[in-house]
């Protein structure tokens, strides 16, 4: 569960370039909900995700994840609750490390990384097993460096990495923005599958209206840091494509 209570965030406070990205926002996303957030550029979508993940802290307000107040927790500590998929496929993985090493870290996301060698043969088999669900044949490329794979492959792997360790919350910031249509479709389908299978509470920020319509149980439109529209599953299902596009002409 994700709870935001009266969150405010201003950048460059007191300077000429001061910008109030989120004036005051409260939002509760129930456990197991796949929530899609749309909005024009500068509407505060990415800021919202970064506030939840702890990349920066709010000026005021509270952030509660799974009934724990995490407002004062540093970003790397919040990874106990959160898995992230970044817009740039390069950010979610370490390019010069092997696929296996990347997965090893993902498997220890909520745990200390100790002085033992964890990339054993049995771990290798486990990773190969997990990667098979992507049906991309990547299970044979475990020892290759991440940088040798395409953006789509890396993004798909990041998704699987998110489920390597206990994960309750998945944050996706335009995960398909850098991908071609075929890879985008693949990544989105796998994401929906993984969210359902693991009953994750998920937020997807997207500019792809088709994805916004097709995926998720709840649809929110942000405008200047406020919730302009908030559609439940039922209302979302009867929403038409043209209607969604007209939201952006207000």
């Amino acid at each position, binding site marked *: 569960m994700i709870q935001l209570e009266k969150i405010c965030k201003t950048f460059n406070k007191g300077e000429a370039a001061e910008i109030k990205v989120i004036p005051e926002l409260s939002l509760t996303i129930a456990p197991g909900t796949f929530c899609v957030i749309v909005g024009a550029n500068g509407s505060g979508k990415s800021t919202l995700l970064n506030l939840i*993940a702890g990349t920066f802290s709010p000026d005021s307000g509270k952030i509660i994840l799974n009934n724990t107040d995490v407002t004062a927790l*540093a*970003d*790397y*500590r919040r*990874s*106990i609750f*959160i*898995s*992230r998929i*970044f817009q740039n496929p*390069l*950010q*979610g*993985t*370490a*390019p*010069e*490390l092997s696929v296996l*090493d*990347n997965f*090893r*870290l*993902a498997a*220890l*996301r*909520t*745990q200390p*990384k*100790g*002085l*033992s*060698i*964890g*990339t054993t043969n049995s771990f290798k088999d486990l990773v190969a097993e997990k990667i098979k669900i992507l049906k991309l044949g990547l299970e044979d490329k475990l020892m290759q460096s991440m940088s040798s794979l395409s953006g789509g492959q890396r993004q798909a792997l990041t998704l699987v990495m998110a489920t390597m360790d206990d994960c309750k919350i998945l944050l996706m910031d335009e995960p398909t923005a850098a991908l071609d249509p075929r890879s985008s479709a693949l990544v989105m389908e796998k994401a929906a599958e993984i969210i359902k299978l693991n009953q994750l509470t998920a937020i997807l920020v997207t500019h792809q209206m088709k994805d916004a319509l097709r995926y998720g149980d709840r649809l929110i439109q942000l405008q200047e840091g406020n919730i302009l529209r908030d559609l439940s599953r039922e209302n979302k299902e009867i929403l038409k494509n043209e209607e969604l596009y007209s939201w952006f002409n207000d």
Partner: protein
Amino acid sequence: MDFILTAVVQGIGFCALGFGIFMSLRIFNIPDITTDGSYTLGGVITAVTLTSGMNPILAMLLAMCGGMIAGAITGLIHTRLKINALLAGILVMTALYSINLMIMGRSNLPLIGITGLPGLLPIKNLFLSTMVSYSIFILLLLMSLTWLLRTDFGIAMRATGNSDTMAKSMGINTNRMKIIGLALANGFTALSGFLLTQYQGFADINMGIGIVISGLGSVMIGETLMRLLKNRTIFIQLLSVIAGCIVFRLILAFALSAGLDPNYLRLITAIIVLIIVAGGNYKTLTRS
């Protein structure tokens, strides 16, 4: 022939420094200038402790601790005070000059009649025992570093230097990791100070000047050699550092034996490093 053997032993002695540079530069992407100071610090601690009759193993541990503290301070300045890593290194290096003088009490301390680490071996010939003991020492260091970088902690360390965002999203405290990494790197550097001080028979306040550049040069020569290989495991990468350190000393030795004025040594060192770095950028340079 003698000068070749001498260069090889020196090269082996500098391998610890090579490992240190490999860690700071290649794993954490930080050109760490603290190296100049922590190398001297290692040498100074060695000279002071050995002349007071301390066991060489204990002296080694103390030298390493000294280097680690210096590195940790650079790491703290860089991560906590958000000061550019290069500047943080220069600050600590400058401060270490006075610290080193304070520890030694003067600017040069000879080790007369002290055998040190090589003396622990039952080999009469000093040159041979130096070569053997230094080789064993570096091999042990190679093994431990290979092991460390392959552990879960080591993977986290490599991820920190490779992608900060990814590392943080995997729950890694990247600031703490950088502090630990710089501490280890300078600990290794101080170990070279420990070995070379015994080899040359004295510690000198200026022994570290420009040493970071020769370390960078060695690591880069190693990388150039490694391009010949397809296998790029951690072990191979560290092995290439060793090769680079020895080749680098051989290049200098040949230059000197060909009649080069020793005063030009650092100039030659800088030019060699420049050629290697620029050589790596050759394709992008010709394009513009």
